[in-house]
């Protein structure tokens, strides 16, 4: 218990970031029209691909003879990249169609 409290104390900045980000996250998408729900979900999906940074760090830290960590790390980076790259490209594809649509009738 005590050590968990210490952890909170040591990471108080982080905790502030968490709390503010929660409100920000809600505020930022609060007024999204339902038309954009799917692209928004897809875009948010790409953003949480930021987890790849953890994968890079963990792989980079691994000793070069620690094959267990290297193989899993390699996999993690591949999966993370899929999430990031795939997510952004798919979102862009969806939004591309909206854009071309807006111009033509006017």
């Amino acid at each position, binding site marked *: 218990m005590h050590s968990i409290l210490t952890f909170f104390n040591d990471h108080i900045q982080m905790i502030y970031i968490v709390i503010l980000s929660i409100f920000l996250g809600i505020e930022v998408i609060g007024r999204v029209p339902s038309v954009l729900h799917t692209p928004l979900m897809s875009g948010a999906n790409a953003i949480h691909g930021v987890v790849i*940074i953890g994968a890079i760090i963990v792989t980079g830290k691994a000793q070069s003879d620690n094959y267990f960590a290297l193989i899993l*790390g390699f996999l993690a980076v591949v999966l993370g990249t899929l999430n990031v790259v795939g997510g952004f490209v798919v979102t862009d594809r969806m939004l591309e169609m909206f854009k071309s649509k807006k111009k033509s*009738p006017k």
Partner: protein
Amino acid sequence: MNISVLTLCYLVGSITFIIGLKMLSHPERARRGNLIAAFGMSVAILGTIFLYEDNDVHFLGNKGVIFTALVIGGIIGVFAAKKIKMTAMPEMVSLFNGMGGACAMLISIIEFNYQKSMAFNLGTGNVFTEVVSKGEILVIILGLIIGAVSFAGSMIAWGKLNGVIKDKIFKGQRILNFIILLLLVGTASVFVYVTPATSAELNNTVMPFTDGTYGTTAIVAVHLYIFYGVLALALLYGVMFVLPIGGADMPVVISLLNSFTGVAAACGGFLYNNQVMLTGGILVGAAGTLLTILMCKAMNRSLGSVLIGSFGAKAVSGPSKTTGGHYKEISLSDAAMLLGYANKVMIVPGYGLAVAQAQHTCHDLEKVLIEKGVDVKYAIHPVAGRMPGHMNVLLAEADVSYEKLLEMDTANDEFRTTDVVLILGANDVVNPAAKNDPGSPIYGMPILEVELAKTVIVNKRSMKPGYAGIENALFYQPKTSMLFGDAKKVLENLLAEIKNI
């Protein structure tokens, strides 16, 4: 120096994520917002690879492995994202989400093994500066659980949307799920409790290991077993949690799992004191949760009932509250007549249209009708299609102009002046029971009030109830006629008939 440049990179990343999400909420700026977020992500990733410094390791090693993985992942990602059909988009989002969850899960596994190996290294004379607190152990296990649930759940959701996996409902499923969840939480708590923290205070409790070395921590086999036990339970829970939920309910689940993965990423942010992971993860966690709630509201479901999968169970137990009565069928040529000579036609696209991939044919029909001087518009229910907003994407893909898509409230005002409403594979979103029948499970859900129009033509494959498992009184009303068949085939035939008029 390096590390402060990296901090700057992370700041840029965090800001672009916020701006990106913000811009994604506006139709005109959405695309740019997406690109801005992608740019920020690249900065953060490249910065990490080249500038990250550890307490003891100066720079990250294994760059070859990292770059190979980046290239492979990148190529597959672009390829998959470019190839996928627009109708299969929900599957794709689910799949990518699962990848992110798996990534978070693997990070926790590697990190835990890393900490274990560090404990052994101490005995062999290496300088051990890593301090592991209980809090970090908590974060590792949280990342593991959330990542694993998200991964397993997304894979099941993906399979369901693909039609590979069928809904599986059996008696006592809810109780079983609850037991698994309890076990999971229990085991995880035990894990956090028994796993020793490496901190300055514990440094004097040096323990001998079997191989003759010494270490300060005693992360031993038993902790590893519990760790993998937690992993197995989390994966099992992910599967069991999504399995009973109906296919059409998947959007809510995907959105929820999406926010789970965000939280898992944020756990990584805590672990590495990494602000960009933290802000990115929490932003998505919060935004995803809100989006989930918005979707639930539109379908008049509580998040709780989605979570325990009670809807599926209800659909099985009480679908047969028959309204009875007669419905009348309409022939293709009659339908073509009605549409061809109407002044104003409103098309209500639904899940059936998405499944039949009939959006292009639908647009062709619209063009032919417009040539004949008919005013054609689309009424889009917020949850039409397979995901909120999915119908808009599908119709946009088929070149339907943006202005023709009416949101629910506007559409409801226009139904009064509409001659013919053509419903394509939609059911629950036009069910008047949501307004009239307080006993109905969908009571209170906002619907498209199509019965205000003069005539209603419903295209469905059969009289089977929709995914909510309830009868639709609309089909038995005198102004409604049924046009059975697969949406695409029916539209093609209808198109030919109208051209002949």
